[in-house]
């Protein structure tokens, strides 16, 4: 194929994927590496890429220590409760102690943060959330990244990481192709910070046809954070911890501001409060440690997100659906009504489109809620991602190997969705993680850890052949048929995605089985995943756009396979409402109060699983 090979050499820091994590990394890297070569490779256009492309109406992770609101450890405890204990508290504490400095800089750069007129502090939506006019959140942080980077390569789909050939398990850059020109791009770099995204569209969606685009997480979030890291042999953690969201039906519009700020609430089809009916049985299932109904009532201890989902799923399955969001009271206040609409326009315009199309006026009727298909990501109420080192002054020995946010591959760092065990980072926390990774990457280089990296022409050419194989394959077999998309030698990317979604749904606890799976189902699913992997070698791409979709699918497949292995390994139901292991329906703290860690051998494709200790931050005096 006549595509050029374009080599960018002598890079110090390559940022692969420039959403909130990647922009934070590029920005900060310039300060600690003023003479270093910083390059960004972004799949779309950095001004509107990543999960925040559309905008946000809130920053969901802000401590407010400046206003005497919260300390970092308060946020750690909140995230720990919400995730049923399974988090990396060193990474969370570290993120939380830095995050406010990022938010204060956003305000200085021009991001409109709302203020509470009475207190002068930022307008709180909830304990951790502040309200913003964030339509231009992404273009603003993109400006910061562009100012810091030597070069920004837009429209580069990064397919693989390059590995050093002089020292095993050390990164050496990345390769990919330009989605416009088709050219092959090689980035030789001393370090790589993966800022790519989590995965939408790996489970069969509730929608059919066009509506498949109205996923909760962006459709361009193709699990590349995990595809790239798993492909390079980095260890992953908590990949079983997929998330299900309770959202407005079909449009998946956000509910945070509705619950917290507009004080709306839910009820079943009979107009009854239903949630508390399910809690006594649920308390038995998960144990008092995770759901203590009485204590929650008295102390306003939050109920974990997954358990609230469980109540919705159970109520609907008991025949008392749909669940409604009661908006009719709050929306009588014209100010709150306006906020309700602004909330959608700022981050999920599609929900406003849907209510306009279906004449849903929340002042006059209570809109329906539903639980979504599962998503695999690591910055919301879920903690999938790479097993990364924490900071020197916080992390216990099992969590520390020299450089903050470095994966188990040397010189390979993560930020945002890429880092495992750090839920509730959201936009600001992801940006902060990028900053932390960038400082550590500069130190790694300054310490002389990136000397003598060697990448052979053989590796570059081998990857090139692999990258374009779907187009070659298509060309060879296309003319064996008259026309159309049915060919005995290849499947196209959409056909492959349909197969992946169907088997994730049916075997790994998707929406059509009410999030239920078990060991037998997981084994069958894994077998089908292997066969799908073989067929992905025969995927056909008609053009460069389909080549993009083919590689997104391969990254989604690698992500999904990790979800299978982790779900199989953890023999308990840790997060009812996210998924259920029908053969182990309870939380089992005796055996599973641990973090799950996996590694896929890049040579054989075989998986090894291990348990890692789960450390908690405790009050020094209490011991």
């Amino acid at each position, binding site marked *: 194929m006549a595509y050029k090979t374009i080599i960018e050499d002598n890079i110090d820091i390559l940022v692969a994927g420039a959403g909130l994590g990647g922009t934070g990394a590029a920005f*900060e890297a310039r300060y600690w590496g*003023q003479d270093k070569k910083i390059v960004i490779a972004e799949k*779309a*256009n950095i001004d*509107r890429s*990543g999960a925040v492309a*559309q905008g946000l109406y809130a920053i969901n992770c802000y401590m407010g*220590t*400046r206003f005497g609101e919260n*300390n970092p450890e308060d946020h750690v405890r909140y995230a720990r409760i919400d995730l049923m*204990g399974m988090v990396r508290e060193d990474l969370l*504490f570290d993120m939380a*102690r*830095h995050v*406010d*400095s990022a938010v*204060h800089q956003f305000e*200085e*750069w*021009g991001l*409109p943060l709302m203020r509470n007129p009475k207190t002068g502090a930022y307008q709180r939506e909830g304990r951790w959330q502040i309200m913003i*006019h964030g339509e231009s959140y992404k273009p*603003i942080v993109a400006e*910061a990244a562009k*100012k810091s980077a030597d070069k920004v390569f837009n*429209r580069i789909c990064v397919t693989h990481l390059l590995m050093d050939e002089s020292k095993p398990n050390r990164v050496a850059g990345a390769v990919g192709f330009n989605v416009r020109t088709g050219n092959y791009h090689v980035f030789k770099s001393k370090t790589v910070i993966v800022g790519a995204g989590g995965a939408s569209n790996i489970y069969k969606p509730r929608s059919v*046809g*066009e*509506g498949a*685009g*109205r*996923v909760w997480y*962006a459709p*361009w979030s193709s699990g590349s954070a995990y595809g790239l890291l798993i492909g390079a042999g980095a260890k992953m953690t908590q990949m079983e911890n997929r998330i299900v969201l309770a959202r407005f039906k079909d449009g998946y519009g956000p509910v945070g501001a509705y619950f917290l700020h507009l004080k709306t609430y839910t009820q079943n089809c009979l107009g009854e409060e239903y949630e508390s009916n399910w809690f006594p049985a649920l308390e038995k299932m998960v144990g008092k440690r995770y759901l203590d109904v009485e204590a929650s009532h008295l102390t306003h201890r939050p109920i974990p997100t997954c358990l609230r989902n469980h109540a919705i799923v159970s109520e609907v399955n008991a025949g008392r659906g749909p669940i409604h969001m009661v908006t009719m009271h709050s929306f009588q206040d014209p100010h709150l009504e*306006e906020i309700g609409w*602004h909330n959608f*326009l*700022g981050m999920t315009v*599609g929900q406003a*489109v849907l209510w*306009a*199309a*279906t*004449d849903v006026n929340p002042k006059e009727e209570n809109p329906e809620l539903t639980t979504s298909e599962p998503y695999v990501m690591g910055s919301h109420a879920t903690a999938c991602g790479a097993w990364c080192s924490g900071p020197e*002054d916080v*992390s*216990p020995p099992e969590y520390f190997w020299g450089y903050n946010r470095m994966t188990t591959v040397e010189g390979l760092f993560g930020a945002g969705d890429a880092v495992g065990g750090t839920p509730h980072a959201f936009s600001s926390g992801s940006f902060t993680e990028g*900053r*932390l990774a960038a400082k550590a990457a500069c130190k790694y280089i300054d310490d002389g850890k990136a000397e003598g990296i060697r990448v052979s022409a053989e590796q570059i050419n081998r990857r090139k052949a692999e990258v374009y194989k779907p187009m070659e394959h298509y060309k060879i077999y296309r003319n064996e048929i008259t026309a159309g998309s049915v060919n005995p030698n290849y499947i196209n990317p959409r056909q492959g995605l349909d197969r992946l979604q169907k088997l994730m749904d049916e075997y790994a606890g998707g929406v059509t089985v009410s999030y239920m799976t078990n060991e037998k189902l997981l084994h069958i699913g894994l077998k089908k995943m292997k066969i799908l992997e073989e067929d992905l070698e025969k995927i056909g791409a008609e053009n460069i*756009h389909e080549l*993009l979709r083919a590689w997104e699918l391969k990254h989604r497949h690698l992500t999904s396979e990790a979800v299978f292995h982790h779900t199989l390994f953890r023999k308990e139901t840790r997060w009812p409402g996210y998924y259920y292991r029908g053969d182990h329906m309870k939380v089992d703290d005796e055996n599973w*109060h641990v973090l799950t860690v996996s590694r896929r051998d890049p040579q054989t494709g075989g998986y090894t699983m291990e348990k890692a*200790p*789960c*450390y*908690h*931050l*405790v009050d*020094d005096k209490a*011991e």
Partner: protein
Amino acid sequence: MPTFVYMTRCDGCGECVDICPSDIMHIDTTVRRAYNIEPNMCWECYSCVKACPHQAIDVRGYADFAPLGHSVRVKRDEEKGVIAWRIKFRNGEKDMDLLAPITTKPWGKYIPQLRDAPAPTKEQRDSQLLFNEPKYIRFDEGGLHTLESNGLKMVAGVEAY
């Protein structure tokens, strides 16, 4: 089909192609104008709608759940730093205008060039501090939170939960 493009307004300039996060706004080779090549990968994020200099792009809600006859239009003005929305219901009973700020500062002017910032000292490099820290964390004289400063320690196992 989520986004679509009006034939008489589009001049094929390609601004939408350049900005679309999903790579689905392409130029049709016959009519030389933009169109959405993959509606089921469209998030209705409105990036292309906002970027179009001719207001040639609009959104028709997803066919599998959104009936025809609604409208959500937008005009984003970087100079003025505002975004204006108009929402019209299918039944015509609701027609809302909503205005919001998108920035409080002239574009990009208040973002520092870190290459020109005073170089970090060795002490800063060896610390846990990031750029502008500790000042920007709380705007007071205090330092960064540590386990020690906050009276905390890390203990493994369920007993510590």
